[in-house]
């Protein structure tokens, strides 16, 4: 049975099983109808021109993985940022793992969507924010229709969260193929600060398809610092849909590090709803083999005096393919907008492909918008210079790549995350560098 049919036929059973209030029920049914109509995206859609999901949709995914498998902390510790104290929201095959998690309800709420859906005290937040900024496109609708679990983070006014929050989704591979649809909601009220680290990790090489949706709301003067670490197994695919709504004077930055996985699609959408907002989108992509990474970013400048900064670096080896589609829309009212977008790519192999589409749509005149996009190689002269001075070619190349990616790396604000990313890059480039970057 095709995955779409399978999803459609299992929806009724699912609907009867979940015990949620009627409002959510309505949102679900609407989203379900939407997906039923639209189906999975195909290459015929402009937004999916360069990414085909066909190869991963043919797996026979188990939509509601049931078999619970115990996971030992020792086995998965390496996937955590473990050298600092953090809150943790951990899911195993889509189910909450109290054993690995560390949630809180003191001053702030770091807990579960399932709790938020069902407990009366969260109802106002769910009513105000759930599914409010998410686009009603095919995959987001699919997620909404089946959304039951995920991280729920609510930071009330004037709180600086003292430690970062980690959201980790493990897949154990207990099923031959697993489909997960985590749904998260992050609401950061006025003047509050929060740092979040997100990771999807498959523990075996059984195929996984994750269709994640995260909604983030940054109220006035809120600071949100979000890190996505994508270093999954080569049989795990991810469609990550992130929607961010910002109010005046808020600053939201999202760093996406894509090193692993089969097909990774990042839909990162920023909507600016107030003045003096800053939106920061940065990413490093280093892939090889037959990996495919697709970054689709949207910054919608709706109001005046806002800024956005995008910086995406990519290094592609072997037969990997990559896509960068950065869209900036500046509305008529959004005067004095400053929007910058930069995308630099290095092709290491003759078989690798990069498709870039940096796109600007501007309706206001008093704006500064620019985008730059390059595709090139590492500097042979620089490499030769290093070789002359006794640095082996491989290490020399790695150094150049680190330098290339450094503008993104240096803006990572959590030292331990930066350290981890540096290690991952070194690992990916198969070198040992004897110093910290």
């Amino acid at each position, binding site marked *: 049975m095709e995955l779409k049919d399978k999803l459609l036929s299992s929806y009724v059973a699912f609907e009867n099983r979940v015990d949620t209030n009627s409002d959510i029920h309505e949102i679900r049914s609407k989203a379900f109808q939407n997906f039923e109509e639209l189906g999975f995206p195909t290459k015929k859609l402009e937004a999916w021109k360069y990414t085909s999901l066909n190869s991963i949709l043919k797996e026979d995914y188990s939509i509601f993985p049931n078999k619970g498998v115990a996971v030992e902390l020792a086995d998965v510790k390496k996937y955590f940022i473990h050298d600092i104290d953090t809150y943790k929201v951990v899911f195993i095959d889509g189910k909450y793992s109290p054993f690995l998690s560390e949630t809180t309800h003191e001053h702030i709420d770091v807990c579960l969507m399932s709790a938020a859906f069902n407990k009366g005290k969260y109802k106002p937040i769910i009513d105000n924010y759930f599914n409010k900024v998410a686009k009603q496109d095919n995959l987001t609708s699919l997620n909404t229709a089946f959304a039951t679990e995920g991280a729920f983070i609510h930071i009330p006014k004037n709180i600086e969260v003292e430690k970062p929050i980690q959201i980790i989704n493990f897949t154990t591979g207990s099923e031959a193929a697993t489909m997960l649809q985590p749904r998260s909601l992050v609401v950061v009220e006025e003047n509050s600060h929060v740092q979040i680290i997100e990771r999807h990790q498959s523990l075996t090489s059984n195929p996984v398809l994750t269709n994640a949706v995260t909604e983030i709301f940054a109220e006035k003067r809120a600071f949100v610092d979000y890190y996505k670490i994508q270093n999954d197994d080569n049989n795990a695919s991810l469609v990550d849909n992130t929607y961010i709504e910002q109010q005046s004077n808020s600053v939201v930055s999202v760093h996406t590090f894509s090193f692993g996985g089969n097909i990774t699609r990042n839909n990162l959408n920023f909507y600016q709803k107030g003045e003096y907002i800053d939106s920061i989108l940065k990413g490093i992509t280093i892939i090889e083999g037959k990996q495919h990474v697709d970054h689709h970013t949207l910054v919608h400048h709706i109001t005046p005096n806002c800024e956005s900064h995008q910086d995406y670096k990519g290094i592609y080896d072997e037969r990997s393919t990559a896509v960068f589609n950065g869209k900036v829309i500046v509305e008529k009212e959004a005067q004095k907008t400053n929007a910058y977008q930069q995308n630099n790519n290095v*092709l290491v192999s003759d078989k690798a492909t990069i*498709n870039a*589409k*940096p796109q600007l749509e*501007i309706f206001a*005149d008093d*704006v500064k918008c620019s985008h*730059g996009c*390059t595709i090139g190689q590492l500097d042979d002269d620089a490499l030769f210079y290093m070789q002359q001075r006794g640095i082996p070619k491989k290490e020399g190349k790695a150094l150049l790549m680190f330098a290339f990616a450094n503008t993104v790396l240096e803006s990572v604000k959590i030292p331990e995350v930066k350290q981890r990313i540096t290690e991952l890059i070194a690992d990916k480039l198969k070198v040992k560098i004897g110093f910290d970057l």
Partner: protein
Amino acid sequence: MSKYTEDDLEQELKTQEYKYGFYTDIESDTFPVGLNEDVVRAISKKKNEPEWMTEWRLEAFRVWKKMEEPEWANVHYEKPKFQDIAYYSAPKKKPKLNSLDEVDPELLDTFKRLGISLDEQKKLANVAVDIVMDSVSVATTFKKTLGEKGIIFMPISEAIQEHPELVRKYLGTVVPTTDNFYAALNSAVFSDGSFCYIPKGVKCPMELSTYFRINEGGTGQFERTLVVADKGSYVSYLEGCTAPSRDENQLHAAVVELIAMDDAEIKYSTVQNWYPGNKEGKGGVYNFVTKRGLCENNAKISWTQVETGSAVTWKYPSCILKGNNSVGEFYSIAVTNNFQQADTGTKMIHLGKNTKSTIISKGISAGKSQNSYRGLVQINARAENARNFSQCDSLLMGNECGAHTFPYIEAKNKSAQIEHEATTSKIGEDQLFYCNQRGIDTEKAIALIVNGFSKEVLNKLPMEFAVEAQKLLEISLEGSVG
């Protein structure tokens, strides 16, 4: 003028009417409206075309019938009703002319009002002009000089008669009949156009130019241009157009094919000033053009365009860099005002090794217009050491217009070097202030800035064309240029 502000400019732009709005009354014989196989056959017959040409047209027509109008462009318009168009119109009298004296005085007067004096051009500019008056060439000059060099430059309908082997060999090789909706339509019904062949090693001694005009109310014009530059040759081809003021939308779907063989160079310049519609956005020409060039080894094709007219423009002059070391260039200024919409850009397809391409695109939008750049740079797996540089700059005047860029960059070879940059800005208050401080009044300052903004492209125009290009910029953005 005491104080000339940007608001004044905007005001002027808003109220600027099309200056070349007039209509020449030459008795035409026009086909009844509508399109079917019989009409295609009739056009072919009227042209006295050989059998293969009729078949070629019919094949294109059959393909066209199955095609749908493209909707991906960032333009919105009322679709032309293809069955309400008369597909053929020609001035009835087609006298064989040896000198300008024999040309219909009314026609000469038309050109005078356009500011184009054939006489003057002949003497001063050394330009051979193949005037296309409503689909059929009326006068060809300088044929003799060109003939001595072996250069063939004639209406394509004549070329089909006189050089069928050349036309048959090359027609439709760069833009196949099946290429797209409008190219297929054009292939089926094209009435006339120009054919140019430069023999091996010949450097064309003069700029070749054709002036296209839409003249008959309700007649779509379907021009077909084919330029073949044989090995080691060089040609500079100029094309410019103005159309009279009409209220109904007129369709213009031309196809231009360029073939540059080994070591050849083609420079193709366009000044386009079709009627853009009035300031309420009523009327105006739909300009849906397919232009493409093919470069063999060491060949070079350079497109330069100044786009100021048309209500809707849909145009992507492209280069297929098939041969090694071939070069493609695209220089464009697109000005939109009032309700004009332009979706224009280029495609650079790198197939050969060491191929280079340069794209410089300048968009100026004013009024309520929408100006889009849409481009593709494609480096194929075997295109070693391909190089591309793209720059798209937009200038916005007022906050009711829009500027958009849709660049597609596809690289499949690691040795590719691609740079793309785009900026959007307005004429800065500080820039104007700086000029004012130095005694340059605001009007001159705006002119200076717009001129500077478009300089890189204007510089690429041949000398003979520069005057006309400036004239057209003046009309489109009067008060801001010169």
